[in-house]
């Protein structure tokens, strides 16, 4: 195993600064709540981050919202907003960037940097790591005005290679003090040996199926994987296995085929007229990114580390290094340019228009990824559609161009939500649109209504005597619905109700042909403020309209229509 790494370049010594639940820090900023409040941040109905208080109740990353709420009923739920995460993280990047060169933003909440130089300057890895952690915490608490109390603070780990350094940072965040692994492959392997193989997928992005397979084969620890002969692992598991084996042994953790590109790959645009609008810059960035990605793709390569640089007329300079292990596509590059420019503009160090924008790939690897499909999968049409969306955003504005995202819920308007197209990955919609694989309890049966009224419109329902239909606390209907009457006034108007039918200001009285219900729903019974109790009905009128009605607190509402 050791002999195999002789010919390779030495493993770089890296420092990783990591805040485990950064989205929670940002989400907590908007509301002045105490640090001990349980908070989760959701994306596509799955927990992506949670506060320490929520973690203590059993909430974990990857759970569905329902599971998280079941474990911790008082939890506050926030939606994930990567752009604001990135903006808030900019303060940390700046503060750390002032101490160490070439800070690489792996994701909002996580930084990677070469630790050799700074360690020598600050007197050793441990002293350097402690300084970085202190500076980052200060940047968050004093400059950005956020509180780290709810999530436990920053962890700094220093080790050989990205994998070991990442794990060290996770451990450091848990212990609230920096973790330094001695240099050398032997020391790294010793550190990794007792750790579970699960970390391969969590930290290094190895596929979960492969990790599952290792577990089933009885290889529960990285040490037991590393102890196997490399040739056998390669023969049994293929290149992915060999990669995992190299990681477990503390070897080079750059993906096979990674190399530094020759100089002169960068693309840039110099503006004659300084550009003041970030939208215009992002538009140019998209062209540059497509040019760059297209050129690389023609050679079968993909960029994994990218430097985005921008200069203003007054000589101000913004430069950030971005990393993505799976490779940066054009959309991902544009997203990062947007994060960087937004943060730059927001933190006020920009006094003039931008005159230069440059994208410089500094690490490439061969692209094993995406082959445009002949049938299904990703096609040229998708690329066109994404381009059209970019144009629509330019014409109509970001807030008007929306794409659906699955959310899950009982009410018709809960199941899907609209998110701005610029924040979504349009080429990989599967994750965004994924419906929970198990049925949502209390969900309406299929087919779904096609017109959803949100907010619901008031409506009156009468029995044959002209009295309003009610439902008892035990779910019994007072009398069969005989007619419905839509209030013509706008939604939410009050002051009418059980006044009998035929009063002025109301729509036509429609006789009921058939009906079904009540289907009772009780939401958040544990929460007095947001507790909702309602009964739902399907009502078919004689004119052929199928309506979905909701009875809540004695009032009838038209929630949706099947048309």
């Amino acid at each position, binding site marked *: 195993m050791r002999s195999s790494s002789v010919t390779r370049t030495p493993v770089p010594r890296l420092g990783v600064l990591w805040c485990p639940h950064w989205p929670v820090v940002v989400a907590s900023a908007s509301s002045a709540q105490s640090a001990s409040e349980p908070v989760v941040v959701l994306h596509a109905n799955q927990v992506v981050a949670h506060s320490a208080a929520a973690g203590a109740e059993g909430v974990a990353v990857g759970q569905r919202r329902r599971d998280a709420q079941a474990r911790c009923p008082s939890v506050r739920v926030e939606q994930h907003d990567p752009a604001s995460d990135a903006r808030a993280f900019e303060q940390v990047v700046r503060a750390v960037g002032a101490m160490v060169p070439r800070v690489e933003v792996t994701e909002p909440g996580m930084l990677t940097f070469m630790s050799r130089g700074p360690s020598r300057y600050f007197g050793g890895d441990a002293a350097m790591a402690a300084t970085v952690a202190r500076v980052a915490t200060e940047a968050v608490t004093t400059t950005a005005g956020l509180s780290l109390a709810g999530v436990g603070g920053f962890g700094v780990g220093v080790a050989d290679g990205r994998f070991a350094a990442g794990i060290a940072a996770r451990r450091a965040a848990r212990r609230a003090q920096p973790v330094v692994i001695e240099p050398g492959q032997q020391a790294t392997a010793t550190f990794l040996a007792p750790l579970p193989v699960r970390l391969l997928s969590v930290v290094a992005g190895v596929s979960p199926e492969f990790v599952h397979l290792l577990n089933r084969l009885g290889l529960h620890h990285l040490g037991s994987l590393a102890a196997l002969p490399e040739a056998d692992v390669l023969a049994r598991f293929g290149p992915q296995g060999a990669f995992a084996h190299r990681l477990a042994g503390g070897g080079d953790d750059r993906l096979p085929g990674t190399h530094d590109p020759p100089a002169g790959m960068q693309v840039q645009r110099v503006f004659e007229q300084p550009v003041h609008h970030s939208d215009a810059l992002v538009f140019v960035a998209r062209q540059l990114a497509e040019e760059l990605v297209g050129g690389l793709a023609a050679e079968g390569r993909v960029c994994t580390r990218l430097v985005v640089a921008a200069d203003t007329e007054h000589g101000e300079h913004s430069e950030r290094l971005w990393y993505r292990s799976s490779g940066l596509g054009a959309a991902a590059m544009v997203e990062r340019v947007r994060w960087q420019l937004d943060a730059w503009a927001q933190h006020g160090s920009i006094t003039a228009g931008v005159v230069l924008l440059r994208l410089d790939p500094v690490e490439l690897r061969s692209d094993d990824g995406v082959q445009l499909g002949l049938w299904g999968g990703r096609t040229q049409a998708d690329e066109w559609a994404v381009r059209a969306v970019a144009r629509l955003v330019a014409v109509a504005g970001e807030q008007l161009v929306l794409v659906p995202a699955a959310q899950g819920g009982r009410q018709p308007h809960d199941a899907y939500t609209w998110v701005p197209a610029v924040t979504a990955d*349009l080429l990989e919609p599967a994750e965004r649109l994924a*419906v929970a694989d198990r049925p949502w309890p209390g969900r309406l049966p299929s087919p779904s209504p096609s017109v959803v009224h949100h907010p619901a419109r008031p409506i009156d329902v009468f029995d044959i005597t002209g009295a309003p239909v009610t439902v008892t606390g035990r779910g019994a209907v007072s009398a069969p619905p005989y007619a419905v009457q839509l209030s013509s006034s706008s939604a939410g108007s009050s002051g009418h109700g059980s006044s009998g039918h035929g009063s002025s200001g109301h729509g036509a009285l429609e006789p009921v042909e058939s009906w079904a219900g009540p289907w009772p729903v009780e939401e958040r019974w544990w929460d007095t403020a947001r507790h909702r109790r309602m009964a739902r009905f399907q009502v078919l009128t004689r004119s052929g309209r199928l309506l979905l009605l909701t009875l809540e607190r004695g009032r009838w509402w038209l929630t949706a229509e099947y048309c």
Partner: protein
Amino acid sequence: MVAEPAQRFDDAQWADVLAAMIDGFDVLLLGPGVHGVRAGTARRLSARLQQRGAVMFTVAGVGGAPGPFGADLRFVATDTAWQGLGEGHGVARGRRVSVQLDGRRVPRARRAELWLPTADGAVEAVSFTVAPLPVPLPAPLSVPLSVPLSATG
């Protein structure tokens, strides 16, 4: 993927937005808001639509007015009947609709019995006829196309 204007677009904005959509997508579903587009703009967009080979669906206005984009094909749903609902029991399992297709590209009107939707939200044909119909049309309904959104199964 839907662009949804919160405030009203003016004619020039409509032209820009629709042109971008036509260039990027093969199928467009438009709400009743497009009835505000001027006829000249609509003609230019129709030409672009044909050139790109895209398909646009619009919803008929009040009284079946075709809107500024004169439609090549017209779907009229009649005899809608929801199945599965009883007197206080059951659940809507689907709707049988008789859809008639006519328009300037169709020499003889066609008629099909459809499940729109079926119990799992899809569209399914029950029967299909190309009949030389006498055409006593009732008032045309809006085109009741289920947007894929609602077909979540």
